[in-house]
């Protein structure tokens, strides 16, 4: 990969990581402003960025409770995202979705579902809609190794294959369903093995942005050419706890050694080191971007702070029942 391209991808990953870090920093501030449960994306940035890099605005992305990274990578509006976390009516969901249901249809980000596998079948249906319309748009759904255990994932994958639907299934295998490790839940070492006799699957390094971008590029091209669904499993790790701002390390969950090993492989840090190996010019460029990024994030939080709360009567809007 050309180093300037890598730099662009680095910036997108760094932006997600930095937004998550600022959220974590402010989450427990005095006069708490964010009243919404957060599931931060740190550690998995390469998956969202590398996959979405290959998608166009008309393509649609479906996500889950851990949706900040997918939303931002696909081009979701940052100001509206922070405003949503601040319960403001300028939020992307007008304050009715919160952290787990980010949505920006203008950017091709469907409502995220906290019923972790819920969007896998909905994304499949959306892909069917695209196929019926005869366009070349791709539907892409992100879900975890835990979600893959829900029966509807199997149902959706079989149906997508039956109808040769234009859908990319992206499994982010971070090895934990909340705190339950993979080996206590699954008979096989990878998730892909469960589906490998139904559709093409690959197991890939989810922390290497070049690997993710390259594999997703090939998959998306095949899907656009009408070859049917593809399943990509990215092995990765979240360096935050399942929920909240901690690192999820304690004797009952996972060890410091394990965490340290994965922290060494943090995708943003790997990309940064790679850039500097390419050329020293990136030291300065990275610093410059850091300033630009902090300014953008500060503006987003200021926008959220200044925005009004939803009015009482807004509770009754956006429902047709």
């Amino acid at each position: 990969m050309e180093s300037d391209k890598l730099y662009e991808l680095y910036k997108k990953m760094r932006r997600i990581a930095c937004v998550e870090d600022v959220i974590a920093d402010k989450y427990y501030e005095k006069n708490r402003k964010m009243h919404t449960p957060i599931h931060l994306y740190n550690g998995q940035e390469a998956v969202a960025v590398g996959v979405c890099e290959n998608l166009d605005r008309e393509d649609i992305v479906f996500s889950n409770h851990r949706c900040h990274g997918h939303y931002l990578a696909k081009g979701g509006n940052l100001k509206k995202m922070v405003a949503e976390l601040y319960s403001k009516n300028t939020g992307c969901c007008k304050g009715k979705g919160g952290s787990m249901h980010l949505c920006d249809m203008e950017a091709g980000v469907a409502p995220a579902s906290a019923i972790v596998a819920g969007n896998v079948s909905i994304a499949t249906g959306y892909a069917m809609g695209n196929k019926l319309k005869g366009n070349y748009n791709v539907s892409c759904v992100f879900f975890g190794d835990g979600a893959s255990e829900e029966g509807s994932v199997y149902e959706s994958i079989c149906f997508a294959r039956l109808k040769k639907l234009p859908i990319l299934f992206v499994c982010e295998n971070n090895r934990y369903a909340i705190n339950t490790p993979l080996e206590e839940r699954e008979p096989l070492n990878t998730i892909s093995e469960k589906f490998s006799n139904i559709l093409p699957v690959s197991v890939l390094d989810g922390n290497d942005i070049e690997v993710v971008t390259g594999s997703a590029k090939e998959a998306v091209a095949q899907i656009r050419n009408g070859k049917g669904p593809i399943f990509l499993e990215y092995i990765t790790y979240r360096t935050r706890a399942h929920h909240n701002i901690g690192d999820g390390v304690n004797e009952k969950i996972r060890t410091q050694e394990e965490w340290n090993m994965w922290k060494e492989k943090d995708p943003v840090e790997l990309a940064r080191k790679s850039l500097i190996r390419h050329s020293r010019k990136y030291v300065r460029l990275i610093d410059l971007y850091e300033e630009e990024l902090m300014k953008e994030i500060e503006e987003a939080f200021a926008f959220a702070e200044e925005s009004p709360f939803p009015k009482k009567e807004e509770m009754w809007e956006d429902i047709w029942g």
Partner: protein
Amino acid sequence: MSEADKKGKERFLSYTEAEKEAVELMLKKSPDIVLMGQGINDENAMFGVTDGLYKKYGTDRIFDTPLAETGLTGIAIGLAMSGYKVLYMHNRPDFLYLAMDQIINHAAKYSYMSGGQVNIPLVVWAVTGQGWGSAAQHSQSIHGIMMQVPGLKIVMPTTPADAKGLLKTAMDDKSPVLFLEHRRLFGQEQVVPEGEYGIPFGKGVLRREGTDVTVIAISAMVIDAIEASERLQEEGISTEVIDLRTVKPYDRELLITSVSKTKRVVIADTSWITGSVAKEISEFIYRELFEILEKRIEIVALPDVPTPAAYVLEDIYYQNADSIYYAVKRLMEDKE
């Protein structure tokens, strides 16, 4: 008779013929209609509603499905989100329990959760059974369970003409609609107007006018209520029969007008009594008209047990014209 009924020419259609006509008129006009369901293109063809349609409109738009109700309901939602109007048909609502996650957690909530960014124009259609020994899993009326869910509309037509008009309204709606029918209604034939017409949600209809007692009936219980009211008329008791047509939203105005006149109420539901639509309506009437009620409200609904298979037990379990007749008689006791 509803307005739709009156407008018609002398052309008799069965319930499912009327629905087939509604579906076909929509298919002809709009390329955005999709029909799906397990067995939709088989010889039964959803009791005839979809009979042969796939030959004219193709299996891309009218397709048979695997059983997988959870996944396929999600797929129906995704299709709807992408811009299609989707009719997902089930021979039996009992299998919809498998789809509850998608109906309740997703279809009913996505418009709200996204701040109105998406619509889910999905109609989930199913037919409640009441066969001979169908037992506990082929006989359930699920509207009481589903009524709690904000964002979900529930339609339960009784007559062929209403089924046609309400199905069009359901398909034109931006939000998910549960369209529940009853096997006992399929025997009817009625004059059904030609062409497309819609019947608004939240508008019940008087099937019979009366002055002594209001019987508010849902779905197949309307047939029983009319039969009971005919017998009661012979005894000099005048019964007003309301066909609710849609249980969410339901026609509060019509209930108030009728009950204000009769001051006596029977509510007849096709489902279990606890937590039922009948109980919801009775609470509404108590709240609005408590002072004027002559007697406490009588509810005719199923006892809180699963449907038994043995016909001797079915006879006790299922409510019918007799149940309504005696409920009205109880309300009229002090008058006689």
